């Protein structure tokens, strides 16, 4: 029997507000444990949570960017369970009436556009963390993360493969980064993902028993875990067994999922201390106006406006900063495709090598385009330009200054080149002989010698032309 994989994701994203969701404590990374805490986020008697308005705005912005309906009236509830990293014995979350519903994120599924539904998006507070010291019989509690604002984005079970889940996560991340509500760094925990996965016989309309998978440290891990679970559950079903509803943990090293705990029912009750969140139309419009062009729309526009291939457009628009940098460049340079080639190949690879971000670039789009213009004018060769580019990246100096300082100006003086060519021909009579006997390859060697002598600065078109003239005489 063939099985269809059904995947839904629950994604937690940390909002990048300056302060916590219900008190004035900083959300910044703390050096000392338990240094960003107060009686409120420690859940001490008689303290009352205070709604951080920015959190509502950030969350609403996210909801709108994810095409959700924003509730005019939403409320907070207490999700109760005991764990030492949870100060109050309950987490303040939105259960009964969440902030946003019925949204979607678009992905590409085998060349076709597919909408992955978002069932619910709500606000909640993060828990602290436990530090298990090697060899000790105790755990330490650090509550600096307790009360950091999160949004939880619960998708519909619309994904059918690890690949689709991977795409969904990537697109979700890009959107949230575009609207600047989170840095979405899964490795640093500012984006977390749990998988709900089940299998059903192909053609069936009913869902199978789902398994929840936690502890996924990267998008790649999500993809791998789905693929592992697909296989595990298929094997169970094919051997006549049935899947048990449970929570499993992804073991990255071994590449498998491991039983963590059985099904859990959380008790919820309304949070009496927080007023409902009332989202007026005016407020929503105001927030909506702050949403920039989103990656999907930008990609379409780049294809149309700049004639970029879809591949280029999706790479350039995958990052807001890169796409902004690109658009600045296009203002200063006539050929958008040349710009995208340079950015995709040279810029992305150097960023990759150095681990630096585009926001930290030392040179401006204008300087970068000046360099492209120098190639066009023949001042430098394309090959030299790559060195100039790396120097710009390292020092932030203008391309003119670099070319000047390092004497990289292309030699385009006809007489000078001709005298070098003649010198090379004299020094390599064998190659000249070969060429004249029909070994056209020998020309390459001669050009190479000129380049060697000029340290690559000889204008390649000119030197080719000179050789042709001299040799074919």
């Amino acid at each position, binding site marked *: 029997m063939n099985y269809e994989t059904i995947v839904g994701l629950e994604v937690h994203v940390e909002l990048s507000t300056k302060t916590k969701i219900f008190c004035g404590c900083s959300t910044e990374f703390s050096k000392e444990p338990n240094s960003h805490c107060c009686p409120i986020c420690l859940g*001490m*008697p008689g303290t009352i949570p205070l709604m951080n308005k920015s959190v509502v705005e950030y969350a609403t912005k996210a909801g709108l960017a994810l095409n959700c309906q924003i509730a005019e009236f939403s409320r907070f509830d207490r999700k109760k369970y*005991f764990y030492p990293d949870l100060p109050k014995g309950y987490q303040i979350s939105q259960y009964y009436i969440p902030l946003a519903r019925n949204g979607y994120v678009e992905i590409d599924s085998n060349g076709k556009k597919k909408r992955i539904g978002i069932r619910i998006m709500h606000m909640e507070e993060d828990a602290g963390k436990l530090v298990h010291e090697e060899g000790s019989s105790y755990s330490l509690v650090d509550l600096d993360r307790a009360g950091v604002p999160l949004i939880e984005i619960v998708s519909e079970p619309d994904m059918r493969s690890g690949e689709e889940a991977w795409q969904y996560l990537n697109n979700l991340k890009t959107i949230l980064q575009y609207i600047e509500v989170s840095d979405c760094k899964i490795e640093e925990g500012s984006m977390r993902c749990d998988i709900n996965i089940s299998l059903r016989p192909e053609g069936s309309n009913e869902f199978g028993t789902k398994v929840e998978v936690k502890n996924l440290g990267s998008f790649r891990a999500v993809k791998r875990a789905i693929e592992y679970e697909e296989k595990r559950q298929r094997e169970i079903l094919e051997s006549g067994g049935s899947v048990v509803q449970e929570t499993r943990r992804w073991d990255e090293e071994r590449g498998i999922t491991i039983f963590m705990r059985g099904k859990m029912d959380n008790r919820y009750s309304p949070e009496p201390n927080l007023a409902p969140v009332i989202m007026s139309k005016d407020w929503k419009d105001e927030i909506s106006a702050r949403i920039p062009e989103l990656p999907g729309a930008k990609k379409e526009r780049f294809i149309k406006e700049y004639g970029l291939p879809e591949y280029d457009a999706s790479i350039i628009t995958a990052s807001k900063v890169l796409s902004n940098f690109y658009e600045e460049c296009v203002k200063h340079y006539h050929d958008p495709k040349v710009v995208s080639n340079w950015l995709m190949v040279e810029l992305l690879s150097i960023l990759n090598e150095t681990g630096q971000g585009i926001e930290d670039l030392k040179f401006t789009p204008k300087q970068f385009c000046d360099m492209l213009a120098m190639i066009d004018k023949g001042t430098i060769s394309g090959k030299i330009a790559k060195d100039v580019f790396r120097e710009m990246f390292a020092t932030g100096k203008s391309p003119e200054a670099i070319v000047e300082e390092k004497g990289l100006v292309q030699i385009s003086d006809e007489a000078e080149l001709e005298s070098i060519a003649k010198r090379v021909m004299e020094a390599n009579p064998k190659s000249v002989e070969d060429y004249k006997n029909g070994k056209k390859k020998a020309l390459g060697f001669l050009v190479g010698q000129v380049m060697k002598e000029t340290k690559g600065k000889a204008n390649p078109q000119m030197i080719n032309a000179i050789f042709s003239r001299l040799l074919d005489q």
Partner: protein
Amino acid sequence: MLELDKLTIHKAHELLSKKEITSEELTKALLKRIEEMDGKIKAYVTLNSEEALERSSEIDKKGDFTEDLSGIPVAVKDNICTKDLRTTCASKMLENFVPPYDATVIKKLKEKNALILGKTNLDEFDMGSSTESSYFFTSKNPWNLERVPGGSSSAAAVAADLAIYSLDSDTGGAVRQSAAYCGVVGLKPTYGRVSRFGLAGNAGSMDTIGPITKDVKDCAIVLNAISGMDLFDPSSSDTIVPDYLESLKTNLQNVKIGIPKEFLGDAVNKDIKNAILNAAKTFEDMGFICEETSLPNVEYALWVHYVIASAEASSEMCQYDGVRFGHRAQHYENLKDLYKKSRGEGFGLEVKKRTILGTYLLDLEGNDKYLVKAYKLRTLIKQDFEKAFEKYDFLITPTTPTVAFKIGEAKDSLNVNDMCTVPVNLAGLPAISIPCGFAEGLPIGLQIIGKAFDEAGILQVAYAFEQNTDYHKKQIAWKEA
């Protein structure tokens, strides 16, 4: 001889301003009185003697008595957090809990140079109406040591001159009921009038903080000091705070008072019924109009309140887990065991009962069967009041259906003694209890309920009543034990 411990706030303030007495003398007099009498009354869980004396001499040195409360000691119910001063909620769970912060009301009193004399007893986490569920001890009614003092001992402290005034909390009636049982004045403000930040309450949608004082004027003075919007309590209101003391000078005219018949039914003691009808007569003599009216849904109030309060309390009790503060079991097998034992040992019977009941109520079945209905009824009760207030300026009822009951007499957590006070908490309205008579040698309380945020009106009516009667002046006849 001037007995300093018997002073009201306004009298003490006058004497302090004129430098006829010092704050230190006043504090010492109260501490002496406590030393002599508190062994019998058992009003205080913790005394703050040293610090209070230190503060009083500091205040004397500065000599600035412009503030009405300056240099005057206050007793504080032990569920209101006081910085660096143990706050127990009368529970083993918080036996050694010292808050690193002040409740907003405490901060406000401190800004006015008040000084905290000590912390008074209550039922564990305020669950009860007699202090009998306190982890420490049961406090006594100063009028009769075999009787309960109500849900807070701070009224007993004020009545027995162990404090000039007190700050108390009211979720189902503790402020008013204790004041009624002990023959003093207790005001429960409108929900939102006074910040409840720092009140370790048990039902967030009903908890309020209010003063217990020797007379109405004092009540107005304290309310002036503690009212107002607080950024740390989102449920606090920005409704303008009038000068309550000043408003007592207003001459009342065309006042219409409603007397809801549901509060004068068979459950109410005959003497109390008569006292209320007498009070109505007093008002009529003053030119007010008094008429019988009805609040048809208040008969459900006790149950509705019990259901909602238990649900909210079970949720509120979650924060006491023995991990960050509070009682932690000494021996436990694992994490789950740590929670079970810490909570099992730290909480008393009544708290456990309500936590379990509340947990059921918040669960699917209990929610559908009871909680949802309770919220609906709460709305109906609120509407009853709204309707009544279209016609009347104030409603009067007994504060309690009987005088203070005997220690050990209450059998049920669902206490019929709360029948007159809980509807007011459900509706979030302000109400005051003032002395209006005696039965069995024990004081009777008259409850005056007002429109939301009309504390000024309630105080005016109460003040007018007080000016025309002398119940509040009657002294306790101490039997020499």
